[in-house]
């Protein structure tokens, strides 16, 4: 699962790294499914983060209002 601190930048960097490896044919069949899983996680992480409300952030913002 996505780490606490993972940012969009890190996620896309990781995805791009995997993509680059694939394009350079540096990716083994052995690694393939792990890497694909990883990409899937990263995509899901980004989507969640983008579309779903993070309660922590909401809370911080609310505290600020007071």
């Amino acid at each position, binding site marked *: 699962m996505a780490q606490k601190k993972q940012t969009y930048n890190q996620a*896309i960097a990781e995805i791009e790294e995997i993509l680059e490896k*694939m394009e350079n044919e540096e990716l083994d069949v052995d690694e*393939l499914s792990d*890497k694909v899983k990883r990409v899937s996680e990263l995509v899901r992480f980004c989507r969640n983060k*983008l*579309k779903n409300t993070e309660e922590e*952030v909401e809370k911080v913002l609310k505290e600020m209002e007071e």
Partner: protein
Amino acid sequence: MGQEAITLFQLNQKIKGVLDDAMLHSIWVKAEIGELRVNRTGHCYLDLIEKDETNDQINARSRAMIWAQNYRMLKAYFESTTGQVLGAGLKVLVKVTVQFQEVFGLSLIISDIDPSYTMGDLARKRREVLMRLEEEGVLEMNKELDLPPVIQKIAIVSSPTAAGYGDFINQLDANPYGIKFYHHLFPAVMQGERAEQSIAEAFDSVFEHIGVFDAVVLIRGGGATIDLLCFDSYWVAYHIAQFPLPVLTGIGHERDESVADLVANTSLKTPTAVAAFLIERAGDFLTIIDEKAKIIAEMARDLIQEEKQRTEQIATSYVPGVKLDLQRRTGRLERLIGRLPLSVSRRMGEESNRVMRMKDKIFDTGGQLVKDRKAALLRYQQSLLLLPKHKLSEEKRRIGYLENTSRLNDPDNLLKKGYSLTYLDGNLVKNVSGVKPGDIVNTRFYDGELLGKVEMVKKKNKNQNKK
């Protein structure tokens, strides 16, 4: 007391008379607008001031007014030319007529305004601000900050009452991608004299919560009013430039970019544009991620398919390879085997010939040997036939010779030739010295003998006797 006094009215009449005499009509005056307000009827009342360049102290002040009818015209002309709201803080070149009224006192009636003076002044001020920021090395600071791919947590510096703000919020919240934006307003006065200070304070407040936000959005809420002076101010620009988060501006200017726009990380024309920018950027990110994931998915599938093909190719290709290898080996072995009978029979044939040759040679050599010996023997035999005959004939010759020699010495032969032998007393007389006359001698001839007496003896010379 007791002094003659005139009434205020009289005094003011006098002042009015002096001023009228001074003919202070249609004079172009440079001044700064200290204050400006418009009353219900549309007349505009201003405070014109002049400040000391060095200490900002007010050197001069005068009230002025523009008649409502004139004001509407001048204002539109000025604002459309300069892009600035005619208001406090601006330096203006105005055509005035000095008027003194007994009730209101001194007032300058503005009949015309030259916007180009104000524009020159503003431009100069802006240049000064920019130069100062540059000298301080902060001009590009905010621009150098990386804009995150998704700006989701937004600190908004704006006026809460402004329509622009509300539109901005609505636009963000209703984005078509369903992206959740977090935003918090840091209220600030966006126009007027307090604006500069208020904006700077708002940025300070954002700074206190800097960890929460991705970026600061500076948007101006004012609808038609275009009071942008504060955005050219040094302090606002200074705050923006040095702010550790990227600042996006949507101030809504028509003509030149404000200093705030120039130092901001990203400047857009309107709050709407800023909202659209933020939405598109996040949306793009979502799209990029999806696309990359899709490419990766395709590549992963391709890779698997390729590897499958490769494996299957190996699986099918090495079977014939192995069979071919075995065939090759079998062929090689059979070729080797094929060489065997030929080389054996050749070898055997050679040996057989060799033995045959030896046999023949023995036959020839043995025969020759016997033949040679026979020939030698024949030669010996021939020698034997000749040699004894030769010897015998030689001996015969030799004997003949010896016989002849002997025969030559036979005395009988001498007698036959006429020689004779004389004996005395049986002894052969070889010389006359032993013979004396009277001796009887016997003389022999080949066919008989004579007896006689010696009558005389004659002796010859010795020389003659040698024969």
